[in-house]
């Protein structure tokens, strides 16, 4: 539909270079966030000969895999303006469920893994229902779930680790070396696939668009005829799927379903997301940012250990680097 007016129409030719410039600036920003990471990597490479080795780089990726997977899923929730505190203990619970399915109930490997992942999705559905339908604030809804999941993991496992006696192959999911000679674990490959999938999901599909819309202005999105309740449940379910996958990966890595722990992991994952430039206010964020955030955290932790910084100083150093990295990021954005 066009209007006929006397005035000349704007020239689309004029619009294009601007658009290009905008896109360039966007990727430059991420390049710069990436630069923080590079600086840290260079620092540690100089400080220790053991840091920049194939084995250690793989160790870093391995360490980043579980938290990173959680961070990927929770990026969606955070972009809607929500938060998911249940990812840490939820992951533990999914690991325990994998143990129940495979060891106690003797399911075949694929079924047990699928079951555990879907169990994560179920946790997400419940969170989504509580947030979207019952309108419980996300912080509280997922805090409640965090406690419930922590308790259930203990109850269901009988407070004992579950070992994958029936399915010894389970541990290959994370540990199988897929490139002969360099110990490149399958789990890291899974993580990389998840990164690509979630990036596509966020930037190229309707879920992703609505994730941003809801986070930007939920009321306006609803009035535009978008079924916000439905989409929020879907988004929390996506986060739950990643929780399930993380549960399987972590249990596989430890060759056992540990019924405790997980608390604190949610803060680590959320930190990775926020360091990556996603705003807790909602409406802004990216998967690339989250991956960079997760890598910054993993590199820092690993590097400080490699150069043998006394443990009590490590947390001080991580805290300072996070502050500085995010501050520089802010500076750059304001000047951009």
């Amino acid at each position, binding site marked *: 539909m066009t209007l006929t007016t006397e005035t000349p129409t704007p020239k689309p030719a004029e619009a294009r270079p601007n658009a290009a410039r905008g896109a360039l600036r966007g990727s430059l920003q991420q390049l710069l966030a990436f630069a923080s990471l590079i600086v840290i990597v260079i620092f540690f490479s100089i400080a220790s000969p053991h840091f920049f080795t194939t084995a250690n780089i793989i160790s870093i990726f391995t360490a980043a895999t579980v938290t990173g997977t959680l961070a990927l899923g929770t990026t969606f929730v955070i972009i809607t303006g929500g938060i998911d505190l249940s990812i840490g203990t939820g992951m533990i619970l999914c690991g325990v469920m994998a143990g129940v399915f495979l060891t106690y109930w003797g399911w075949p490997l694929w079924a047990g893994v699928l079951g555990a992942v879907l169990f994560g999705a179920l946790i997400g559905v419940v969170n989504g229902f509580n947030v979207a339908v019952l309108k419980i604030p996300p912080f509280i809804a997922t805090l409640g779930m965090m406690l419930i999941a922590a308790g259930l993991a203990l109850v269901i496992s009988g407070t004992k680790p579950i070992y994958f006696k029936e399915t010894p192959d389970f541990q290959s999911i994370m540990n199988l070396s897929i490139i002969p000679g360099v110990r490149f674990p399958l789990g890291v490959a899974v993580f990389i696939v998840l990164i690509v999938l979630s990036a596509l999901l966020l930037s190229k599909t309707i879920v992703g668009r609505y994730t941003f819309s809801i986070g930007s202005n939920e009321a306006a999105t609803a*009035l535009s005829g978008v*079924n916000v*309740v439905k989409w929020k449940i879907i988004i929390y379910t996506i986060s739950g799927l990643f929780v399930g996958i993380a549960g399987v990966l972590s249990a596989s890595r430890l060759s056992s379903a540990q019924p405790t722990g997980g608390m604190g992991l949610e803060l680590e994952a959320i930190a990775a997301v926020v360091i990556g430039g996603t705003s807790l206010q909602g409406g*802004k964020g990216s998967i690339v940012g989250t991956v960079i955030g997760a890598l910054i955290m993993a590199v820092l932790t690993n590097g400080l250990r490699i150069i043998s910084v006394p443990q009590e100083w490590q947390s001080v150093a991580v805290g300072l680097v996070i502050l500085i990295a995010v501050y520089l990021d802010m500076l750059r954005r304001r000047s951009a």
Partner: protein
Amino acid sequence: MSAPLLEVVGASKSFPGVKALDDVHLDLRAGEVLALVGENGAGKSTLMKLLSGVYTPDEGEFFLSGEQLAITGPKQAQELGISIIHQEFNLMPDLTIAQNIFIGREPRSGGVFLSERSLNRKTRELFDRLGLALDPSEVVGGLTVAKQQMVEIAKALSYNARVLIMDEPTAALNDAEVDTLFDLIRRFTTPTTGVIYISHRMHELRQISDRITVLRDGRYVGTVETATTPTSEVISLMVGREIVSEQRQSDESAPRETVLAVEGLSTKSLLKDVSFELRKGEILGFAGLMGAGRTEVARAIVGADRSESGTITLHGRPVVINNPAEAAKLGIGYLSEDRKQLGVLLERNVRENVVLASLSEYIGALGFVKDKKIERTAREYVTALRIKTPSTSQLVKNLSGGNQQKVVIAKWLAKDCDVLIFDEPTRGIDVGAKDEIYALLNQLAAGGKAIIMISSELPEVLRLSHRVAVMCEGRLTAVLENADATQENIMDYATRFSAYGTVK
């Protein structure tokens, strides 16, 4: 003649990709109301933000009573005696009216504790002086847009400023409230004070202003005496062309089929037994005073608010609509009056906003979004509605108010709805663009859409509507054919209950 009260010389301001102001001049004389006009995106708000210390100019000098000023921030501008009502509200929704008005200037008792009582008393004194009837202790978040606007006005007036800047204060008001406002402005202008008044309502300029300054594309075009300049000349200065308009809707007598029938609609808070029919190809105007319940009717129809009773029939079939998503599925779209809170996604770009309501039409086989097609559609509407933006990837928050409104309109035009409910669609839109939007609405109606248009501007209602529904205090008091409707009888129906008490 002595130095002007306020003078701006050679002001320029650029944003990435946009030169918002280019060597602009302006002078405000003591004791006058200076109107500032220009198309959407001409740079009016930007200029005012320079004066009130929100932005710092790239270039330019400011003089207050001949003395050069360096404006460093909002607080300092206030202290210099420059008070501003921004185009977008700047209120704290969780605080009360009184707390909002005296924020930063709270009276304290005994030096430490705040005194809510004296705060409310001061506010009531202010309202008495201004002739407003608002409850100082009411929480601002629960007020209608119009009342919030009055709070903004009261707040600006409470500063005892020398220069009062009003950026489209009447966009959310209807005639009665506008009269009150003009009263206030006249009382405010004394030989030592002056007002800069921005509006897109041309007839208002004649009522209130002494001179008119025109901006176009960020440049100064000229200043004219209101009394000696015909409106058409002002408009052509603004838009650089002639606008032909003021035709009323010709009544089409052929009865058409009913698309939407509302029967006995009531809500807990306000609506009582609202019934009307909307026909194919017609524009049904809704008129009424502030708070009459027009917005509430629209929200109840699309399921944004719960209704207590009433039936809705669409194409002859009764339907139950629980939320706007269901309404949209049935082909009913609602454009909200509250652009900032309920209309746009400020932090997202133009493109995403335009296709928000129709996104499902841009999905490919694998569930991927068709970005090229989206871009094409967005470009189409940017051109059609003459949305002033460097590209479709500009964030909406960086558009001028009127252009944001155009984006919201584009969102609903991009979705193919049978029934469109437009609540104050031309709020903040310049005269030229208004004409284009009117033409668009007519085109849509001619194409067989059924349109409800809620507007507080009676001339607009009269000009566009085939029929006019009038509301008063939650009831529908009349539905008039365009031919029978006049400003007078509409106002009469709009004040039915206030005039005659609560007649059953």
